[in-house]
């Protein structure tokens, strides 16, 4: 069977400017940050990003790589407002398709199920309809005759997700309390790339957690990357919690200074060493 393991830079080598890119996780939780950092080391730009937004959105927006964001929010959770998302919006440099959280979820379901849309009781009456004039409604064909928003499928060229464990074939497992929507992201994408804390033998997966923890199956995965601490500084329970001190540093340091110190290296290894050096300085 196909060994799908690759490096973060090999994943990025398969992406192109102008693509629509889905990013898994939620807010500042289990984001595929190592893959996002690899993207920042490339020249890829002009992206349409689909995300329950966190620092993935902030980093890419700060670096000027995002043309359009499709999201219901961008937050760092413990820091309510994502600072670089905020700056990009207030500076007028980021086009936004602002959906409600449930609309967004049904858009993922529609894409994963190869449907053009799914109906949802959300959005009607709100300004989501005003700022997205392309949205249409649909009337129930049954006796109730109710009207709903027809959320268009959130189909994407590529998806990036981060899970706790994976095998070389692309089967991936979450061990924390929430799957978020990572399986849907993979199924909604033409190609999906899974980074994981630890690459294990297939036989290990069923031993590490219950059957329902096997969230992502290999048929929906193109590439697998082992990136220990790869969700840093977002949370990746139970392997590690969010690095609140570092997130605070990220949120309060001017972007050029943060990028120069932590993101100017040649690879993920340089980022992780720069973080360790900073952590040692704080002791």
């Amino acid at each position: 069977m196909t060994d799908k393991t690759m490096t973060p830079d090999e994943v990025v080598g398969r992406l192109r400017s102008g693509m629509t890119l889905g990013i898994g996780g939620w807010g500042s939780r289990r984001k595929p940050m190592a893959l996002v950092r690899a993207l920042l080391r490339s020249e890829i730009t002009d992206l349409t990003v689909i995300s329950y937004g966190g620092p993935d959105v902030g980093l890419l927006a700060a670096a000027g790589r995002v043309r359009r964001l499709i999201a219901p929010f961008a937050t760092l959770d413990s820091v309510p407002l994502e600072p670089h998302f905020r700056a990009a919006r207030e500076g007028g440099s980021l086009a936004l398709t602002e959906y409600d959280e449930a609309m967004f979820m049904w858009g993922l379901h529609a894409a994963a199920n190869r449907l053009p849309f799914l109906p949802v009781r959300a959005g009607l009456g709100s300004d989501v309809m005003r700022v997205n004039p392309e949205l249409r409604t649909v009337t129930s064909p049954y006796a109730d005759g109710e009207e709903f928003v027809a959320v268009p499928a959130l189909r994407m060229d590529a998806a990036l997700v981060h899970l706790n464990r994976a095998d070389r074939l692309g089967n991936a497992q979450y061990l924390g309390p929430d799957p978020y929507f990572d399986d849907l992201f993979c199924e909604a994408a033409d190609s999906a790339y899974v980074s994981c804390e630890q690459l294990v033998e297939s036989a290990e997966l069923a031993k590490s957690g219950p059957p329902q923890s096997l969230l992502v199956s290999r048929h929906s995965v193109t590439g697998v990357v082992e990136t220990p601490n790869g969700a840093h500084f977002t949370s990746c329970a139970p392997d590690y919690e969010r690095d609140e001190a570092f997130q605070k540093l990220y949120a309060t340091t001017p972007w050029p200074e943060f990028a120069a110190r932590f993101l100017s290296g040649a690879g993920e290894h340089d980022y992780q060493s720069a973080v360790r050096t900073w952590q040692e300085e704080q002791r």
Partner: protein
Amino acid sequence: MTSRAEYCVLACAEAWRGDGEVLASPMGPIPSFGARLAKRTFSPDLLLTDGEAMLVGLDGTVEGWLPYRRHLTMVTGGRRHVMMGASQIDRYGNQNISCIGDWERPSRQLLGVRGAPVNTLNNPVSYWVPRHSPRVFVERVDMVSGVGYDRAAAAGPSASRFHRLPRVVSDLGVFDFTGPGHSMRLVSVHPGVTVEQVRAATGFELATGEEVPYTREPTAEELRLIREVIDPKGLRDREVRG
């Protein structure tokens, strides 16, 4: 002497009275204390989360699993009563947490609409405002995130079918939408607050009855629970002073 913050905890708790077996989703410290007070006293069947993906009892005992995908289904199933914040709210309960100014290029980007559109069309939504001011209680909100009564009605039967905004609690008083045309009405002022003070801090005309009562006094047991069990560190006084 009951503090203002304690009246606020109590007024938030009252939002969940009579709700039965539904998820109480409080946003922010004082609504969280209120939900816990309600569950410890008059609404014992309420469900609570740990803020992540688990349903938990008052002592933290896990009793269920509620990841975001199931949480969003619970919203559309209606078995939930959320108390959200509001950066802006108008007389019909239209709420904004998305951005201030022109949406195309906001002067202040806030959270985004988050789940406010789906919440308001599907399960009861109450609001909590820790600093009542004309900047929050406005004539028109800049980006309608949570849908108010006028817009739900205008959007048609499927928008208004499950739409309900039970109450708004601020640091000054308690409000509902039983004024003319489902407009905001002052239900009670917290002791130490005058009706004039509320009017001055509100950017639109408020409906009021002939006499506006005070928010009810907590019982001795409710006060003990707030002070000794629910919020022994006094975090409530950081959110609302005085």
